[in-house]
C-alpha cells in the first residue's frame, strides 16, 4: 500500500527558505509568483492491510515524528 504524508508550515510561521526561493524565482524572471512556502512530503510504502488501520498508523507517525505540530500541519493520504 502506498501512502503520502504532506507536512507544511502553519500559517504565520516565518519560512526563511520559502522566502529565499520566492526571491530567487522572481530574479530568474519566473512570472506571476506571489509567494512560496516550502514543505515536506513523505512517500511511504506500507505492508498490505486495511485502509483504516493504515490511516491511523500514518496519523500516529505524523503526530509522533513526521511533523512538529508546534509549527507544522500535516495531511495524510492513502493512495492505493
Amino acid at each position, binding site marked *: 500500500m502506498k501512502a503520502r504524508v504532506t507536512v507544511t508550515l502553519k500559517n504565520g510561521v516565518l519560512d*526563511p527558505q520559502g522566502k529565499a526561493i520566492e526571491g530567487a524565482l522572481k530574479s530568474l524572471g519566473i512570472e506571476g509568483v506571489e509567494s512560496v512556502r516550502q514543505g515536506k512530503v513523505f512517500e511511504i510504502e506500507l505492508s498490505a492491510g486495511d485502509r483504516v488501520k493504515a490511516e491511523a498508523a500514518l496519523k500516529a507517525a505524523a503526530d509522533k*515524528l513526521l511533523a*512538529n505540530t*508546534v509549527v507544522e500541519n500535516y495531511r495524510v493520504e492513502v493512495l492505493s
Partner: protein
Amino acid sequence: MKAAVVLFPGSNREGDVASAIKRISGKAANIVWHADSELPANTDLVVLPGGFSYGDYLRCGAIAARAPIMNAVRAHAERGGLVLGICNGFQILCEAQLLPGVLQRNAQLRFMCREVYLRVERSDTPYSRRYNAGDVLKIPVAHGEGNYTADDETIKRLEGDGRVLFRYVSPEGKLDPKWNHNGATNAIAGILSEKLNVLGLMPHPENHVDPMIGPTDGRGLFESINTVLEAA
C-alpha cells in the same frame, strides 16, 4: 558534579563538552548511550551535546528527541535536575518539548561557524551565577539551523518570565540585527525552562574554556553549574 553526556548516533561534540566538564569540575562525565533507558545513578547534570544526531535528517533533533534515553532525561528534568542542551542538544530539547519553540534554518540559509557576542540577561540561574547580568561573552557558534522561532504568545511568556538567558548582541552589548547572525526572534540564543533547570543554547561555550586555544568566556557557564552542584 556527576554529569552524563548523552551520545546519539551522529553526535559529534560530546568529547568537547566532556573535556570542558573535566577541565572545570575535575570530574569525568559519563557517556550515556541513546538506546539506554536509564541515566547512571545520582546523575545531577544531563548534557545533550552538539552534533548532527541522526544526520539531522527530517528536522534537527527530531529523531533523537524520541530516543529511549529521552524518557529518563524528561524524568530528570521533572525532578528539577539540570539539563543542558547545546546546539543540536537545544534542538533536541525543543523537539522533545522540554523547551518551547523550534530552531529554523539560519536566515541566510548557510551554515555559520564564527565567534559571536552574547549578552547574559540574568545571573541568578544555575547556569549563569558566575556571570553578571549584562556581561558580554565571546563564544563561537557552528550551526545551520539556529534561528529561534516561536509563536508570539510563547515569546511573550519567555520574555515576561525572564527565561531568555542569552541574546546575540554587538560587541558593546547592544541589540543589533547585524550581530544577530541567524535571524533569531528577539536575538534569542538560549532559553530556560520554567523552573530554570533546563537550558538550551545554540552557541558552544565548551569550545571556549581553554586559554591555550582561544578566549575562555565559556568557562563561567560550567563553573556556575559546578558551584551549584557542589553546594547541593
